[in-house]
């Protein structure tokens, strides 16, 4: 790609047919059951749902799975069987075999279509079985891939305690009036806590939402601590029983771009204040996120610009592989805007951002940063295509010949066979990409096809389909 003139117009948004491939939102159980260690996820759907989890996720069979299908059979569909009794039978079995702290019902398209009243059944079951039951309608009629997590977290937000549990006063000390800090300090020695407290600025409680692997939680928490910002809790925590207290007026911030419903729930139902900002993806996004939090809490950020610059310097070897190249997002996991903004900052030209669903408000700050980044780098603004049409996209890809296509699993191999470098979008969903520390890992993923295919091209191995097949580019 040759550099083109800066485009000064605003971002353009289009909407296509929605004929695109992505994973079903019930996928979220695959990472949420791992994150929340005392949970059990029960996906209430058909053989089709179960076979998806088995094949696409492929982890159901390992060790001791903490999720399962409640497979609907003909009798369930035709309403010959009683939903309450059936669910009770299965929940009892789960309780007996796994004894989780919570059962999460994952509704599916089928429960929507047969109008199974999960929200109505859950409280009765919860009361009868004595185990919390959370209902999330992670169905594919309304949601795409990663939004499954959004439905679960939005539902779980309502289960966060609204005030701190009473704490025995025997261990209480001056300066520890905030019950939450105590809650978060289990197992630490008293001296450490006092030492810790002194490092923080005095600011209203902040709760972060979004499921992240534990190391990333630690990294972001430490990053904020450097600025004197204390994270009072995460939604979700590692255990359902340790969900953070959320009181009205608390500040909240999401770490994923796909959590707009959770954000809404936090604001409308828990009366929290949402901090809108770019997401902590890439050094630029992470810096912008921290700066925004600082500004809300009236904290002067320390050394952030230097930190960002250091990180960029440390990954220059990777950045130079992508600089000046072009990238095309087919659209899959709602991380597209953040990734595009980061890659634009790396010097890539973003040709098109396909995205299943675009919440312009929740992603507002991110969109602004993307636009700003393109202006600063002098690259054209990308076209943003909501509900893309994969067939049309493939025609555009063949025409534009991007250096890298970030796409779902269904298209990666066929595109590679036609000499187009691809990266699975799903990998960004599962990899650790948040924060300063993971920049290298993020670029490792992005550059992998480029590093590999460069020398394969020297071998002349770029076109691996016969000419009659090469033409059949449709989905």
């Amino acid at each position, binding site marked *: 790609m040759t550099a083109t003139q800066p485009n000064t117009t605003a971002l353009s948004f289009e909407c296509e047919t*929605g*004929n*695109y*491939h992505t*994973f*079903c*939102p019930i996928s979220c159980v695959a990472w949420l059951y791992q994150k929340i260690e005392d949970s059990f996820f029960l996906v*209430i*759907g*058909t*053989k*089709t*749902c*179960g*076979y*998806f989890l*088995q*094949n*696409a996720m492929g982890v159901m*069979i390992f*060790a001791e*799975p903490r999720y*399962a*299908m*409640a*497979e609907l*059979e*003909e009798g*369930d*569909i035709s309403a010959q*069987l009683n939903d309450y009794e*059936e669910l009770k039978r*299965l929940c009892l*079995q789960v309780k007996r075999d796994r004894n989780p702290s919570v059962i999460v019902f994952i509704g*599916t*398209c*089928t429960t929507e*279509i*047969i109008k199974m009243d999960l929200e109505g059944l859950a409280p009765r079951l919860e009361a009868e079985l004595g185990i919390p039951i959370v209902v999330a309608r992670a*169905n*594919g*009629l*309304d949601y*795409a*891939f990663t939004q499954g997590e959004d439905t679960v977290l939005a539902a779980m937000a309502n289960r966060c305690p609204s005030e701190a549990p009473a704490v025995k006063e025997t261990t209480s000390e001056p300066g520890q009036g905030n019950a939450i800090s105590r809650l978060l300090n289990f197992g630490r020695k008293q001296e450490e806590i006092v030492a810790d407290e002194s490092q923080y600025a005095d600011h209203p409680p902040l709760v972060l939402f979004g499921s992240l692997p534990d190391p990333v939680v630690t990294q972001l928490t430490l990053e904020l601590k450097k600025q004197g910002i204390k994270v009072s809790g995460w939604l979700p925590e590692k255990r359902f029983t340790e969900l953070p207290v959320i009181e009205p007026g608390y500040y909240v911030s999401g770490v994923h771009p796909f959590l707009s419903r959770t954000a809404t729930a936090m604001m409308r139902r828990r009366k929290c204040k949402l901090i809108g900002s770019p997401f902590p993806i890439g050094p630029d996004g992470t810096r912008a996120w921290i700066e925004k939090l600082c500004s809300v809490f009236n904290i002067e950020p320390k050394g952030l610009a230097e930190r960002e610059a250091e990180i960029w310097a440390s990954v220059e070897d990777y950045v130079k592989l992508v600089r000046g190249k072009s990238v095309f997002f087919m659209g899959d996991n709602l991380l597209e805007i953040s990734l595009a903004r980061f890659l634009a900052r790396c010097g890539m030209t973003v040709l098109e951002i396909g995205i299943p669903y675009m919440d312009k408000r929740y992603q507002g700050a991110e969109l602004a940063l993307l636009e700003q980044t393109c202006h600063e780098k002098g690259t054209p603004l990308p076209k943003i295509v909501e509900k893309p049409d994969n*067939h049309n996209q493939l025609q555009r890809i063949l025409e534009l010949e991007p250096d890298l296509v970030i796409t*779902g*699993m*269904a*298209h*990666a*191999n*066929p595109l590679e*066979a036609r000499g187009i470098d691809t990266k699975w979008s799903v990998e960004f969903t599962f990899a650790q990409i948040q924060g300063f520390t993971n920049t290298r890992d993020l670029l490792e993923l992005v550059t992998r096809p480029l590093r590999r295919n460069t020398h394969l091209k020297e071998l002349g191995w770029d076109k*691996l*389909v016969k000419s009659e*097949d090469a033409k*059949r580019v*449709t*989905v």
Partner: protein
Amino acid sequence: MKLAYWMYAGPAHIGTLRIASSFKNVHAIMHAPIGDDYFNVMRSMLERERNFTPVTTSSVDRTVLARGSQEKVVDNITRKDAEVSPDLTVLTPTCTSSILQEDLENFVERAQLTARCDVMLADVNHYRVNELQAADRTLNQIVEFYIDKARKGGTLPTGKTERPSVNIIGITSLGFHNQHDCTELKRLMADLGIEVNQVIPEKASVHHLKDLPRAWFNLVPYREVGLMTARYLEAEFGMPFVDVTPMGVVETARCIRAIQQVLNASGAAVDYEDYIDNQTRYVSQAAWFSRSIDCQNLTGKKAVVFGDNTHAIAMTKILAREMGIRVAIAGTYCKYDADWFRTQVGEFCDEVLISDDNGAVADAIARAEPAAIFGTQMERHIGKRLNIPCGVIAAPIHVQNFPIGYKPFVGYEGTNQISDLVYNSFTLGMEDHLLEIFGGHDTKEVIHKSISADSDLNWTKDALAELNKVPGFVRGKVKRNTEKFARERQLSSITIELMYAAKEAVGA
């Protein structure tokens, strides 16, 4: 509702799509919510398919639910017709969308008005049949459609090919080692002097289906997919078919003899006995492996077999009859065809297991304590937990079951591959056998949890020490048999003397 952690056979629409996407230039429209479209991912990732999967989802969302899907489905059919000019478009719902009970037959008729291609609704009940049954049905439906069409058009050919010929029916996309099996079957047919008239559905053109009746007979290598089509062609044209799966030396010979009989009944005069003898004794290495010292060391070892009908039956027969291995349990998840399974394996195993509940299968394996398992990926994982090796012999498929190197299961090269699989699964060979004799250096503990857990007997310290000298891989068995012996005699304490008395009495 059924609590399910794993399923052996996929939903019906997967079977339909496997058939549709196997054909050349057939497009499928899946009427389903957006997340149901993972067939494309499976085909692309598992089979490392270079081409785009010819399946388009006509997505069901809130808008469609509110307004009905007819317009969208018809639009999508006509759009793809214009874009890729398929010969045939197959419409299928999924479990989910089939609940909507829309008149899809009518959508198809509507679409047919504008589409240049043929349009068809796959006719399966998504709650009553599984992937395998749906594949069998859809193949039959497509064949019947084109035979009927040719008959109506007066283009049905008459007569047979000049030389003996065969249709190979049931080779499909995402089939377990089907591509390599197909190559091997073609080589076998070439050896036998039989022309391959057509292979269906893999890479076949629907336009040629009308020529199926020109073959002298049909060969159906797999029990699960193709039999309905073969029976239809038999009923319609009196075409004989051979449905002996040529897996293992004995069954391959039986298949060839069945072919011989069919050909000679049709006027040929072939004698394949010399060919069979030469392949069996000198070309294939499987019969020789069975006779060799390596395999002698497997004599009487215990195995569990589980899979689809085709592969579980074939492996059971090979293990029991060709290798002298004791099959403790032979099982299948093809519940709908359980009678056939029983008649086939009855005499070759101790116990038959018909189940699609993976928990029940795992329990049965743990109970049987076999030296090796031959099953699906599920059983491989059960084996990992129990520290029992497992050779994978059947679908559900997995990327590891699409090897790049040539690995057929059928025919004479198939017999070689299976011998390797059996040998490697038992991890014998001189090295491991001697290791076994020496007691081995392997200090892994393989006593299954349940064995120690439920023991109500006291082992003396000396007896426990003695038990620990028993090699790990048989320790569980020794412990169990000794305890059984003690209980039968109402003894509550196990001494060394009792251990050896038990060994003498029951071979513990």
